């Protein structure tokens, strides 16, 4: 505690509050709320019932109003804490509401009806986690199928991305040939072309290759990334040429130089690209939505979108499945963030 509080409450100059301390605090706390708030809201809301989600004013934690089965009433009734005219407070069950008056019964003495102003009653609420938000989609929807599709697309696309991009980067960093810089420039220039521009031609290519409604149609167009080539090339430039000369003297073929010398030494940059690729592919929505039209081929992100129907949106399922969808990305970041920072610092890429 002592160390932690000293660290957190450390101030400029050690004494008194300087205005920069206050600005720093506001900035950091504000940043925390902005960055972390939506995630916290998402996680807690994913445990709310549909009624809890529709509640106004909204609460952060998932509360439910307690219910009780009262003799003589078919449905369970909601419990309220009501302030009676004599000043006492009792837990009553609401039978019906008429205007601003509420007809209530005491669960212990169901015969007697008490009329209470709605402003004088507060619902009895308890913390309750609606775990069925998580379990139901597994039962009712093809969640596991979507999950498998997503995992397949992400893993395959990432592996191919790493191999294809590292090969291009190897050639562009370690071989001298005419037009090397031009090739690199053209690759980088494609960064300026957004997906929406090439969507239609890309679609017609995929469709004429017969990859429409095929997971490979999702995977293949994404595997060559200019960012990836750039990250890897910049990193490979830092590998000394003498190492490659040494390998050549050691009778290594060009493939062995790539596979056994350059690739292992590029591991930090490969890790960065792998993380990026996993996040990109996992979160892809638009392109899979275009290519895949059969339900059993949907990826998670596309699958999620079918929870929002035309007439009703099943927010509780959407939120819960969003949390599940986020988990791999969060895990990847938690465990590999070390590589991201060092790798990005190493390649000079922002």
């Amino acid at each position, binding site marked *: 505690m002592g160390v932690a509080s000293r660290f957190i409450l450390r101030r400029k100059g050690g004494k008194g509050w300087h205005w920069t301390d206050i600005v720093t605090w506001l900035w950091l706390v504000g940043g925390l709320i902005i960055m972390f708030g939506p995630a916290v809201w998402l996680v807690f809301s994913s445990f709310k019932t549909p009624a809890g989600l529709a509640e106004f004013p909204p609460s952060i934690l998932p509360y439910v109003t307690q219910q009780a089965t009262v003799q003589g009433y078919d449905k369970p009734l909601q419990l309220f804490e009501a302030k009676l005219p004599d000043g006492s407070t009792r837990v009553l069950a609401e039978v019906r509401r008429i205007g601003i008056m509420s007809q209530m019964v005491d669960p212990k003495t169901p015969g007697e009806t008490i009329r209470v102003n709605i402003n004088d009653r507060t619902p009895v609420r308890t913390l309750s986690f609606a775990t069925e938000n998580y379990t139901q989609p597994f039962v009712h929807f093809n969640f596991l199928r979507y999950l498998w599709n997503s995992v397949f697309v992400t893993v395959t696309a990432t592996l191919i991305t790493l191999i294809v991009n590292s090969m291009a980067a190897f050639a562009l960093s370690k071989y001298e040939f005419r037009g090397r810089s031009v090739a690199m420039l053209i690759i980088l220039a494609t960064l300026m072309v957004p997906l929406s521009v090439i969507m239609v031609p890309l679609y017609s290519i995929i469709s004429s290759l017969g990859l429409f409604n095929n997971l490979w149609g999702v995977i293949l167009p994404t595997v060559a990334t200019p960012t990836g080539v750039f990250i890897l090339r910049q990193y490979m430039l830092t590998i000394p040429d003498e190492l490659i000369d040494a390998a050549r003297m050691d009778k290594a073929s060009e493939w062995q130089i790539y596979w056994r*010398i350059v690739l292992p030494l590029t591991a930090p940059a490969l890790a960065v690209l792998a993380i990026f690729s996993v996040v990109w592919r996992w979160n892809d929505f638009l392109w899979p939505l275009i290519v895949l039209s059969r339900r059993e081929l949907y990826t998670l992100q596309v699958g999620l979108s079918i929870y929002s129907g035309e007439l009703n949106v099943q927010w509780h399922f959407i939120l819960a499945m969003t949390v599940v969808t986020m988990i791999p990305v969060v895990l990847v970041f938690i465990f590999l963030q070390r590589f991201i920072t060092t790798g990005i610092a190493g390649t000079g890429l922002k």
Partner: protein
Amino acid sequence: MGEIKLTDIKKSFGSVHVLKDIDLHIKDGEFIVFVGPSGCGKSTLLRTIAGLEKVTGGEIEIDGKRVNEVTAADRGLAMVFQSYALYPHMSVRQNLAFGLENSNMPKAEVAERITEAARMLEIEPYLERRPGQLSGGQRQRVAIGRAIVRRPTAFLLDEPLSNLDAELRVSTRAELAALHARIGSTMIYVTHDQVEAMTLAHRIVVMRAGKIEQVGTPLELYNTPANRFVAGFIGAPHMNFLSAEVVEQEAGKTTLLIGGSHRLLVPISGQKLSVGDKLTVGIRPQHITLANDPGSLTVKVRLVEALGSETVIHADLNGEKLLAVVPGQRQISPGDEAHFSVAGAPLHLFDGNGLRVKDK
């Protein structure tokens, strides 16, 4: 066998000619040192022999076979790089094994060769470590070990000692000489350090601006440098150069005027020389002695470096710099006048083009 013959080697990078008409015949088992100032093309020459660079012209032969078109891997040579170029992600053992595995050698033989090389170089205790965990000297040994296990026709060493500290360099130099004596393979060694060249080489190849200036044993280069460049490059401190003029010529003897007024008699019957010729006289600092004789060279002392066993005197002779290394400790200080004697010193005469004036 490790006989290497270079004929008329040319190498250009675009319009820059790095190597010009290199002719050299390296005999089997020879320790050859390429020496020269940085940028003289000595490393490029080594890389062309290795096959890492393609020649623009000329012919390279190894053991009588033309290898111009043979790749680096198939020339049967091994190279030790300046930065050692050890594979950082492999252990020392894997570093040594890499080249052997690539030539599909049976595992037992790989292991045997590694053990042998490790014992020879005393790197057995850290065979399982990564290069990053080794000191500079240890890495250097591993780099040499990687070459040894290949049992190459010839070793190519590109400034292998330049990354070591001074003390380690001296001891490693001696080990390298011992290693060569033991293995007996041809070694080609590139350095810019003439002391390394003098101590290691059977023959030294002095290069400048892509050309070979002189090839010879260390003492040949020291005693009879072919030109002013070689004379200045070999030997430490550098040779003194004084401008001289031929004033008299008799049979077998030439009298030169140096330092404005001093007459110097040299036993050269230069038929090419005639009275009035401008020459350069080279005198090694170690060959100058201090004299009391007023007939000797009178110089002004600018700086004295007392090294204990010897004293280095920087002096000025009529506007020309003169360096003398005299044994022992001397009572002499900057600003003094001193008398230098060159009587009996081997003198090197160079003509206007910097070429040695040959004694007949």
